[in-house]
């Protein structure tokens, strides 16, 4: 009796329908159904759409990419448009852009875990994969930008016959450590999260080859309480460390700029500026990846409209911070009274060489972002997809404006020049895009693209104190 009274009381106190949290998974039919649903795509026959995207991506990754890479390495940086005074061109623009794409993935998977957002379980794995692949693409650029890629080992403290060492007072040196650490840590985090799911795919596998591969990957995972106990602790630790990385890696990239005395770069706001810009760009990429994949992989119940809505809201928040930073940048440039600062910022919008990119930055990152305020837009998937693509273009043009726009007209007019990317710059960018999408499609097809155990753990059925988890029946026994 007391129980039923309590339930009545709870029903009365429950929040009204519009304030209730959306369920993590819609139309949930139990843990077994969920397991089938989440591993279905990795086990089914490869659909046609997958090939339609895979073949061009693989062409870009295996033909365009190596061609541009090898031609540049064998010939020299001269094949690019980089020349005095613009020594940092598309190579650095794309480096920052790729690092940026990576950051939202870590933010979703790590920071939202620490803040106990259950909805992130469904998109966390896809976000982590985005991080790992885009850091790979980012790391490539500085390695070849140095010009003589075979001397890359100079950047590491390797004992050598010349007796010289890296110069650790430079943020460019810190960058080497930051990007490498980011690649290693995000890969470890991604891999460790997949161990229990490899176990699930191993147990479901029907062919011998699948069984062997997933048995090796699962490394003998049994899912015992002792294993989960250590696993959960390791997961929390990794989440904490990854969250630190979100705020560190792009800060260090920002330091590369703000320690230089170039007008337009020499500002203390840069570390924060780059972190938030990175996160904003990454949420745009997340929208671009999630919206088509949830439909084509039959995951509309799992990655619900409510999740997409939340990603869009996060994009809006980071976009608003970016807008504030733009405002401050222009204000400080004017307020400083420094003629060079004023010149650079004036020319971002009104200099005839790159004003198109400057207005793209304002038009997309400031104006288009405001559309995300409206619930109508946030529930329109096509609109969100287009906004996602635009955010990526907007952030790319922001990087271009910062890097090239500050370099091409510095203190001495005798030192002015222009920068135009060559076909090899553009080809390499297309190659990295192709490689990214190729790796992503392979991940979606062959690995558990959604964290099976985590999603199951976020269900009410998984809570031993919830009626669906069997709690009431047990209470009846006592």
């Amino acid at each position: 009796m007391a129980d039923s009274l309590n339930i009545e009381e709870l029903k009365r106190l429950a929040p009204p329908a519009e304030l209730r949290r959306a369920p993590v998974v819609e139309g949930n039919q139990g843990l077994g159904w969920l397991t089938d649903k989440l591993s279905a795509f990795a086990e089914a026959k490869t659909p046609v759409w997958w090939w339609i995207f895979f073949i061009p991506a693989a062409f870009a990754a295996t033909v365009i990419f190596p061609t541009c890479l090898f031609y540049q390495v064998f010939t020299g940086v001269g094949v690019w448009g980089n020349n005095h005074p613009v020594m940092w061109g598309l190579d650095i623009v794309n480096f920052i852009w790729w690092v940026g794409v990576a950051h939202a993935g870590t933010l979703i998977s790590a920071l939202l875990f620490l803040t106990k957002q259950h909805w992130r379980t469904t998109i966390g794995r896809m976000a982590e994969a985005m991080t790992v692949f885009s850091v790979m693409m980012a790391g490539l650029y500085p390695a070849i930008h140095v010009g003589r890629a075979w001397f890359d080992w100079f950047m590491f403290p390797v004992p050598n016959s010349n007796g010289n060492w890296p110069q650790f007072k430079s943020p460019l040196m810190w960058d080497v450590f930051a990007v490498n650490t980011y690649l290693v840590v995000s890969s470890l985090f991604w891999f460790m999260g997949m161990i229990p799911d490899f176990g699930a795919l191993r147990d479901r596998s029907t062919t011998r080859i699948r069984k062997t591969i997933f048995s090796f990957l699962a490394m003998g995972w049994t899912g015992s309480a002792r294993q989960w106990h250590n696993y959960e602790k390791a997961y929390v630790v990794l989440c904490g460390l990854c969250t630190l990385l979100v705020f560190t890696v792009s800060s260090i990239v920002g330091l590369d700029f703000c320690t230089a005395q170039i007008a337009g770069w020499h500002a203390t706001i840069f570390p924060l500026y780059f972190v938030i810009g990175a996160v904003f760009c990454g949420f745009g990429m997340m929208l671009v990846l999630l919206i088509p994949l949830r439909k084509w992989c039959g995951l509309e119940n799992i990655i619900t409209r409510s999740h997409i809505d939340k990603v869009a809201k996060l994009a809006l928040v980071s976009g608003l911070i970016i807008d504030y930073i733009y405002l401050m940048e222009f204000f400080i440039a004017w307020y400083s009274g420094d003629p060079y600062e004023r010149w650079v910022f004036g020319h971002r919008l009104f200099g005839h060489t790159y004003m198109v990119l400057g207005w793209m930055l304002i038009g997309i990152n400031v104006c288009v972002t405001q559309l995300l305020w409206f619930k109508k837009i946030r529930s329109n998937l096509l609109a969100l997809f287009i906004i996602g693509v635009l955010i990526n273009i907007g952030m790319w043009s922001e990087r271009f404006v910062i890097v090239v726009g500050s370099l091409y007209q510095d203190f001495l007019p005798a030192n002015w020049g222009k920068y135009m990317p060559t076909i090899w710059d553009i080809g390499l960018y297309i190659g990295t895009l192709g490689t990214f999408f190729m790796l992503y499609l392979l991940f979606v097809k062959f690995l558990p693209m959604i964290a099976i155990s985590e999603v199951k753990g976020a269900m009410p059925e998984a809570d031993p104190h919830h009626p669906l988890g069997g709690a009431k029946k047990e209470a009846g026994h006592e």
Partner: protein
Amino acid sequence: MSEKIYGLMAEFDSPAAILHAAEKIRDAGYRRWDAFTPFPIHGMDKVMKLGNSLVGWVALAGGAFMFANVAGLIWFTNAFDYPLIVGGKPMFSAPMTFVPSYIMLIMGGAVGALIGMLGLNQLPRLHHPLFAKKRFELVSRDKFIIVIGALDEKFCPVETRKLLESIGGAHVDIVEDVD
């Protein structure tokens, strides 16, 4: 195949069922037993008295080791072995060493967490006696299994089976040791 027994396994249907069964097994005085579940069960670590996992300490050790080593490396390379004057700054100072050391602290901590997790879980391992049981494959799906090990002092094939059946375990079965 030898007839050595690894333990007795019993299957449960819900997280609450296995949690209550685990409480009863603990109260019956068993020590060498484990619960196999598709996801971590809230409260299971308390029932099993697992305490605090040591993984955090392994990660801390890894992080501290890397931090100290990279700080030392920077001192050795830039201040001792080949003193490098850059912009009239001191050869060695906290601000310049902090960033790379801190970054490598994160690296050390992450590697420590993964290695600690695998080491404490005795992974990777190529085989486990439970992998021979067909029903064990359901653990990664929607079933919850408790195994009481034959090495437990209180283990008795008859009594333990009775206990597992009395607390609601289905498909109680002997797990053979493969070695």
